[in-house]
């Protein structure tokens, strides 16, 4: 007779496929996962506490450190929330809005490229890593040309953007975007119809739309379930209403569909970038900031504002007491934190090797989960 044992296994925190310092306490029956319990907090730096002790403009570089592979969107979420608090959301100059949109979309592409590289290499496909990093490098060069930094950009200010575009930047973006579509084709030729890739991703970690909403999931994982929900479309900010783009949705809510959704999203971001280039040439140079007082002291009140970050809905909830230059309380609603919560529900019944695929498909960044 066989004696059946359930085992407890620590997955992480030092494991390359956990994308940082995530620890998952697994209960396994042989190779099959009975229960999974994510344990987080290894990268907790008290960002929300720090926000309470510094003036609003000083907080912007700290937002870079949350989702450190998509810092431009973190900046955007924060400055827009403060602008909403100040009531100046409508006053942002057109050129500043377009620069913000371009930086965010470049950031979305670069974040998805990093996701694709690590997700594929976790599952065992090594080649996409080299291909995607080729394009990601070009995007980081564009960031460097704009603001001097490659990862922690700090590229937005309350009321606008810090600087105008450097000479020749739009031509570089034009060159990049004209070739990027072919590059995505190249990635897809490696994976989309690859039999091994499909075996590892189709039917893995299926989420129904009802479950996804119940778990508060946003971003590509929610769209992969077939819910057409994108904040850029549903609650538009900046100049997204003037730009044409499609919101891709999946059907089955499995890892493969989430992969397809992100691939289409990269193409759509590219499309947005290509529309921005002629638009930005029409706007007057140097019109970069709304008129705001140098000391930012918002009125008493509380606001919640969110944007569509590459990982999902990134929200900031700020309480201002109307007396100081600091936020009385600033809470961040990070998409990774909320999406990660559904990991046990997705992982149950799958193999341990599938957990690696699931962590990749949620696209977590632990800097954002732990803040």
């Amino acid at each position: 007779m066989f004696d059946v044992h359930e085992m407890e296994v620590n997955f992480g925190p030092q494991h390359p496929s956990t994308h940082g310092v995530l620890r998952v306490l697994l209960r396994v029956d042989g190779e099959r996962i009975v229960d999974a319990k994510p344990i987080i907090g290894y990268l907790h730096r008290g960002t929300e506490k720090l926000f309470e002790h510094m003036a609003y403009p000083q907080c912007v570089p700290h937002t870079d450190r949350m989702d450190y592979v998509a810092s431009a969107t973190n900046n955007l979420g924060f400055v827009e929330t403060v602008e909403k608090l100040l009531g100046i959301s409508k006053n942002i100059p057109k050129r500043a809005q377009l620069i913000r949109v371009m930086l965010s979309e470049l950031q979305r592409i670069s974040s998805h490229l990093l996701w694709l590289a690590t997700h594929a290499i976790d599952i065992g496909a090594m080649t996409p890593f080299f291909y995607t990093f080729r394009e990601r490098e070009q995007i980081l060069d564009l960031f460097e040309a704009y603001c001097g930094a490659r990862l922690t950009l700090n590229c937005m200010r309350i009321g606008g953007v810090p600087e105008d575009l450097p000479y020749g930047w739009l031509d570089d973006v034009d060159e990049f975007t004209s070739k990027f579509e072919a590059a995505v084709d190249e990635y897809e030729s490696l994976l989309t119809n690859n039999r091994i890739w499909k075996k590892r991703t189709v039917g893995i970690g299926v989420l129904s739309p009802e479950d996804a909403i119940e778990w508060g999931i946003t971003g590509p994982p929610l769209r992969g379930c077939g819910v057409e929900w994108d904040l850029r479309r549903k609650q538009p900010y900046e100049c997204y209403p003037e730009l044409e783009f499609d919101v891709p949705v999946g059907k089955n809510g499995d890892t493969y569909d989430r992969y397809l959704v992100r691939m289409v999203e990269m193409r759509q971001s590219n499309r947005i970038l290509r529309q921005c280039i002629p638009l930005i040439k029409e706007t007057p140079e140097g019109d970069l900031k709304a008129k705001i007082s140098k000391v930012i002291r918002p009125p008493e009140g509380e606001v919640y504002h969110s944007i569509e970050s590459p990982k999902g809905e990134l929200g900031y909830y700020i309480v201002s007491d109307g007396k100081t230059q600091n936020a009385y309380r600033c809470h961040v609603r990070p998409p990774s934190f909320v999406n990660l919560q559904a990991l046990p529900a997705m992982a149950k019944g799958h193999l341990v090797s599938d957990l690696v695929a699931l962590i990749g498909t949620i696209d977590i960044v632990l800097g954002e989960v732990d803040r």
Partner: protein
Amino acid sequence: MSELTPPSSSPPAATPGAPVARSVDEIKRDPLVSTAVSRVDDAILDAKEFAGEITLFADRDRIVEVARAFKDSGFVYLVDLAGVDYSKYPNHTGLRFSVSYTLYSFQKNGRVRLRVWTDEKGAVPSVTSVWKTANWHERETYDMFGITFSGHPNLERILMWEGFNGFPLRKDFPIRGVDTGARIYPEVFPEGGGPKAGSTGKPAADVNVYKGEWKRYGTWPAAQIGGGGNGAKAPAKPAAKAITTEDADV
């Protein structure tokens, strides 16, 4: 300096998009929330509007009922749940903590915020039975503020470690943190002790031990630690000290 300071008592002028303040009853009758509010009208104690966002203050003990009413009327998605410590809020009277629930309705494409007041002793009924996603949010709020949620399936610390002493986002928690070495490593540090001068082979001024409140952001904390000056006069000695190999491991 006075040039830079904006006129202090004119906040409404800064919010051009906001309409004239509506009364509590008018906000309750807003088409966004009226269906849900009509079911639990007596549990909604107050209502506010700021920057086009509706905030409804609910009775703490009936929050599950209120949440259920909102979920049934279309607010199927709990976006965010956050605690706020009001103990140092200007002119604040009443209970110390507030818990904010941000809800979203796909049908109406709108958000609404529910809020309850609570304190250290009382427990907020958990809304995990209404939205599963509330689980980690409530754990985080407990971890950061010490607000308890009754009926939560697994209310334990999430970001801080088990056995951590204190609630970091409370206003009386110092930004420099507290020394909890004694709690985590009882076999290394004696009771009531923590890392001490000498235990790391470094002078007391360099050991990261919290001593009193760090008064103002912008002051380099090292000046306040070793019983030093007021921050303006930086002690010259540690700066002039050459880095040796003995110091390099810290």
